[in-house]
């Protein structure tokens, strides 16, 4: 009941945000937070819940982005048509790549996904149909509403909010379903999960495909908002890294973890880029790197886990110290 109340308050705040903070910079910032939250939440399904640390999710992001711009560039269709195209393409790719790759565990899986991402980037960079090194552009002047080409960030904000809610809804439903329980069992110990009869390979593949499809939606929305995509903005390894770090900072494997991570890191990046200009690009990623190292070193569970623990400790001040130290006291 209290959860429902908090969620409604958060939702009301999210809806009111662009009205309260109405400068173009603030509205754009809000839209970007939501966009990255969608991508990081999609990553969270396979990276957080299933514990398979994919560094190649940018492939699916790129699929969506290239599909949205591709249907416009080649067939003069609305980028909206590219969303289902991108979903189909990335689910297909994730199935083909996932079958051999998901057999690898731990570091090997991460390395293989990096190689896949770099391979795809190199191939696209040398493919003229996909714009090679220059990339593809969307409509310069909107022909109608369905081109989704707006000057203000406000329409994007509400569009992204709706998609984020859908993504979180799907994640929440999945986490509570049988599949969610299987995934958490696999994350804790794949061998134990298998020995208890969990169909680990199949479930991991489903999670990978679901995650891929949702990631491609984020990519398509990104390309639609910026109106173009090139190998760097659509397939650069840093996009994977951003998804990963946002989810990990907030709390990987928690429903709202990626949203919290995005709400911290996107403003950090935008504001530091604004303040430092071109020179800031390098410095921003130095800070990113430092944050990742610090989370890994001190708080692998992310900020939400930390808050939960502090909260739980505060709720029982009368407990004797010895029991509180045992942490999992009922």
């Amino acid at each position: 009941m209290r959860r429902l109340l908090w969620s409604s308050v958060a939702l009301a705040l999210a809806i009111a945000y662009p009205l309260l903070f109405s400068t173009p910079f603030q509205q754009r910032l809000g839209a970007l937070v939501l966009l990255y939250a969608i991508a990081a939440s999609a990553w969270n399904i396979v990276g957080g819940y299933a514990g398979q640390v994919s560094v190649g999710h940018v492939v699916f992001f790129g699929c969506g982005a290239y599909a949205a711009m591709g249907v416009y560039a080649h067939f003069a269709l609305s980028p909206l048509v590219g969303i289902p195209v991108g979903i189909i393409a990335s689910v297909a790719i994730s199935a083909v790549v996932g079958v051999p790759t998901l057999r690898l565990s731990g570091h090997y899986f991460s390395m293989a996904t990096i190689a896949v991402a770099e391979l795809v980037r190199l191939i696209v960079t040398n493919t003229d149909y996909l714009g090679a090194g220059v990339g593809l552009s969307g409509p310069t002047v909107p022909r109608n509403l369905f081109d989704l080409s707006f000057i203000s960030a406000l329409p994007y904000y509400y569009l992204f909010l709706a998609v984020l809610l859908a993504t979180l809804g799907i994640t929440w439903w999945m986490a509570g379903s049988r599949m969610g329980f299987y995934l958490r069992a696999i994350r804790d110990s794949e061998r134990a999960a298998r020995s208890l009869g969990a169909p680990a390979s199949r479930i991991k593949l489903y999670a990978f495909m679901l995650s891929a499809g949702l990631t491609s939606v984020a990519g398509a929305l990104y390309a639609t908002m910026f109106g173009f995509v090139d190998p760097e903005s659509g397939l650069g390894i840093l996009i994977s890294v951003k998804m990963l770090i946002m989810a990990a900072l907030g709390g990987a494997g928690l429903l709202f973890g990626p949203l919290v991570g995005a709400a911290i890191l996107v403003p950090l990046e935008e504001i530091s880029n604004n303040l430092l200009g071109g020179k800031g690009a390098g410095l921003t990623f130095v800070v990113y790197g430092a944050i990742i190292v610090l989370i890994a070193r001190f708080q692998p569970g992310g900020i939400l886990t930390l808050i939960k623990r502090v909260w739980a400790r505060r709720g029982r001040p009368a407990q004797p110290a010895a029991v509180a130290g045992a942490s999992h006291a009922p």
Partner: protein
Amino acid sequence: MSPILVQVIVGGLLLGAVYALFSSGLTLIWGMMNIVNFAHGDFVMLGMYVAFVVWTLFGVGPVLAMPIAALVLATLGIVVYFALVRSIMKGPMLAQILGTFGLALLLRYAAFWWFGANFLSLPENIVGGTFDVWGIRIQASRLLAGAVALLVTGGLHLLLTRTQLGSKMLAVAEDPAAAQLMGIRPDTMQAIAWAIAAGVTGIAGALIATFFYIVPTVGETLGIVAFVTVSLGGFGSVPGALVAGLLIGVIESLSAYWIGAVYKDIVVYSLFLCFLWFRPQGLMGKS
């Protein structure tokens, strides 16, 4: 075989020896503590920048740059081990991957911020020009790099197999708890392994800088080359890394010669994926 083909293969072998050198560092850490250093390629990148700084400050080439780069990187390796690796090793998988990955970003963009994104390079004839041997043109810098890399890799193999230090490190790799009972400190041995692994990347970086452009993102490509080499040679095997490094150098040169320079990375990455997918224990590993 035509002389040009021989030249391509010799060039590949010389480059491959350098690949083998820095990959042997990765494989050492991997074999010893089962952790992958995602920042390994960026260590090589730092070695290249050290060579550049040494040249701008003292006007001296790899003779001085190699020992300095080895020292700087070895120090970094020890710091990274005690500040980061020692604790994430016991943590969950996500923390292990995030930790060294974050380090990679940190180093790469610190170099980007400090030195800028421009391509830097050492003067072309810093080691000497090119010369002909039986009609094959060889760059002196590449010959030096290949020869030194072979020597150091061989030395590392001897160190690990023929000395007391090597035996101690092997003992820690087998079973840290048992090694500790025999009076060997696992912490010290693992820190030494990190120092060696990072030190050889420093030497490799100083060598590569004599014939390759220096740019902050070069570590990304080199890191993947190291992964390919290690996965091909078998995880934890220095001789395996040597054979695999030479092989990859030749494959890269041949595919650049036959298909085109832009496709050489595509060939190597595809090879890597095939190996991970179909033979994860490597060419010489036991199944």
